[in-house]
């Protein structure tokens, strides 16, 4: 018997990976462009690379949950508001009410996961489109933010300060000693949380039945239920998990800016969706990989970095470039989908 499965080439040319290749490829092209143009200004340093993670960790954490939601064929517009509300919980709880941050985080988790589960339940069992349901969730969460406070509240708490200030310096071995690399580069709690979430997300999607059910639902929800898969439970849990990711993103953002503000992260949900989509996740569902989302986050964040290095461009060019990328990826997706449909 010819065993074509084990051929590595055949594995790698599997058409399902095309989108991920496109993302990774474009990221490296843009990065190489940056290195060519601004290599002398320090674009090629480890620091620049690590900063891509540090400055966008909260988007990345949220994108993990968003990727799963998108794979089911759904969408969640509430993530920015829920993350913002998490920040408000922590800021108001610690600074105004004098609560321990862990208490606030626990309350935020209950709120975020609970809202996610509720939205999932409404979407599946009441058959309300995800767009509408989560739009409602977004207004709800944003409303509660403003109810708590309409002013920005600084966060001052030893535990938060410690967590936000905690960092691991990247070292290298030279002349018999471990020394910090120059220019100084470090990773912090947010980066670790982001990477852990990406790994956890990959594990869930690729190695658990729950994850595979997510793909099956995105492929064809009716078939999935005829195949006896727990469609309702899976969908509710996916939105619940996304709620969890939103809260973690909110914590990460709070650590990043060390304050809570009712209007923070407005439009954040769209940035998160953008990360997932340029990472190769199909908006129609059924296709998407965490590794793609990781590179989607990096790709989206490398553009502002380039603009900073250029120094002469207005930052709005970043938005325009991101829009262009999004358009490019949607066109590639369309092309991949139609060409695979034609093969039938």
């Amino acid at each position, binding site marked *: 018997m010819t065993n074509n*499965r084990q051929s590595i080439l055949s*594995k790698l040319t599997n*058409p399902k990976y095309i989108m991920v290749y496109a993302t990774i490829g474009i990221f490296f092209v843009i990065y190489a462009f940056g290195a060519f143009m601004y290599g002398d200004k320090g674009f090629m340093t480890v620091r620049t690379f690590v900063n891509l993670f540090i400055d966008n960790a909260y988007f990345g954490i949220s994108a993990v949950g968003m990727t799963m939601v998108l794979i089911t064929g759904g969408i969640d517009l509430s993530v920015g508001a829920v993350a913002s509300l998490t920040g408000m919980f922590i800021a108001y709880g610690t600074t105004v009410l004098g609560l321990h941050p862990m208490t606030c985080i626990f309350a935020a988790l209950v709120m975020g996961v609970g809202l996610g589960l509720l939205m999932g339940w409404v979407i599946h069992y009441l058959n309300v489109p995800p767009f509408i349901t989560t739009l409602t969730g977004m207004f709800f969460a944003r409303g509660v933010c403003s109810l708590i406070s309409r002013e920005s509240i600084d966060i001052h708490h030893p535990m938060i300060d410690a967590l936000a200030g905690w960092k691991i310096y990247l070292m290298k071995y030279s002349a018999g000693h471990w020394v910090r690399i120059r220019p100084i580069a470090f990773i912090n709690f947010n980066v670790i949380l982001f990477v852990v979430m990406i790994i956890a997300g990959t594990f869930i999607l690729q*190695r658990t039945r729950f994850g*595979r059910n997510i793909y*099956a639902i995105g492929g*064809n929800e*009716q*078939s999935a239920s005829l195949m*006896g898969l727990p469609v309702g439970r899976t969908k509710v849990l996916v939105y619940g998990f996304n709620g969890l990711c939103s809260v973690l993103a909110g914590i990460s953002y709070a650590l990043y800016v060390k304050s809570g503000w009712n209007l923070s992260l407005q439009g954040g949900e769209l940035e998160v969706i953008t990360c997932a989509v340029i990472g190769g996740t199909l908006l129609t569902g059924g296709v998407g990989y965490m590794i793609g989302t990781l590179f989607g986050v990096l790709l989206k964040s490398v553009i502002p970095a380039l603009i900073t290095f250029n120094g002469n461009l207005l930052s709005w060019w970043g938005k325009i470039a991101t829009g262009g990328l999004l358009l490019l990826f949607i066109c590639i997706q369309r092309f991949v989908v139609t060409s695979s449909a034609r093969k039938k």
Partner: protein
Amino acid sequence: MPQKNILEMKGITIQFPGVKALDGVDFSLREGEIHSLLGENGAGKSTLIKCLTGVNRMDEGQILLDGREIRPSGPSQAMELGISTVFQEVNLCPNLSVAENIFVGRQPMKHGQINWREINSRAEELMSRFHLNIDVTRPLSYYSTAIQQMTSIARAVDVKAKILILDEPTSSLDENEVQLLFNVMRELRANGMGIIFITHFLDQIYAVSDRMTILRNGHLIGTYGINELGKVELVTKMVGKDMDVIFNLKRAEVPGDADYMLKAEHIGDASHVKDISITLKKGELVGFAGLLGSGRTETAEMLFGASRTVKGEIFVDGESITLRQPFDAIKARIAFCPEDRKRDGIIGDLSIRENIMLAVQSRKGFMHPMTKQEQTELADKYIKLLGIATPDCEKKAGELSGGNQQKVILARWMAAEPKILILDEPTRGIDIGAKAEIQRLMLEMCGEGVSVIFISSELDEIIRCSNRIIIMRDREKVAEVDGSSCTQQDILKIIAEGAA
């Protein structure tokens, strides 16, 4: 030797609003048996299956599995009980790999993780039992419908099923694939599985089944051994009326000097069809024969403007026309019933009335809307004329059976009073009674001067109806034969060998 009954259904009655879908039906299935379930559309076959798999609740009756009473609450519970179903439409996930489609929901686990290695190797083993050596890690959408069908059977078989229900599994398979499927069915039978087989191909019933049960209008007509009942008797029992109608269809009569309604000269599209020439006279019926993928559908789509003709010329009624989009064809009074009626033809959420008047309205233009009363009259006329089984014209088209949906599409184009009607597999997946009706309607339209192009995979109906038959192979027209003087063997030979 009396075998043990694995399944017994007694006195099953299901009441739908306004109609008794099943009325006291008994059915039994033995261990190691292939049992065909027969009946026209609407006879209650699907309802019986849905009752067994828990999709529909029965109002009266009893289901015994291995002597124990069961009441499955849904397909997944039925599956746990050992009742697996493979539907006509492939109910799998196109984005998942072949292997995963077989195992999703019950993946083998190792250390709390999905064991992909085992999934892939077991899937490969299962597919090779069907003599398919394919890369099972590729997405399902990468493969043909036949392989997708085999995948769903592999899935059903691998669940330790005692009962396998095959609902029209062969309608999209070619001859070799059907034989492959039959071999698999026989092997499963030898292992003691009970198989319920639903098909509208009579030959296949005789080729593979042990017994058959016939339903008509929700009533049990009887259960027979395969040798107890001949084909004609069987059809008579299914349809409940004389079959003379079917076997006495007369070809359209075309006078030798009739005008050419359609002439296509050396047309080809961008990718599929190279060079085809077709002529069609007024009131003539031309059949397109050929295997799936031979270019029949692509040619029809060009003639309807659904795909771009890049070379050659098309004349309608003597005038050269350019078909850029279906609207151009509708203006030229060309009508097209596509092959996949669910996807391209019927709009399930619209009522029968709205479905019927679509093409008329499109031709009239939206500036001249028809009144509701005109529409209703029009719809009622065709419902009566075509014998569409529905309480009224406001029923959603998606709720009709396949044969009735086909009639609605036919009515849509008849109402538009076309000069040229192209029918792509109009009789696919519908029962023999409805098939005969459709054929009769086609020929009646020819009698009224409409020219018809009839595409079908079933050679007997092509030969029965066509004046001329165009035979296609590998995206080319290889021969044109006279419908009255050729036999199935002639055509098969041309399809197989390519020589005229």
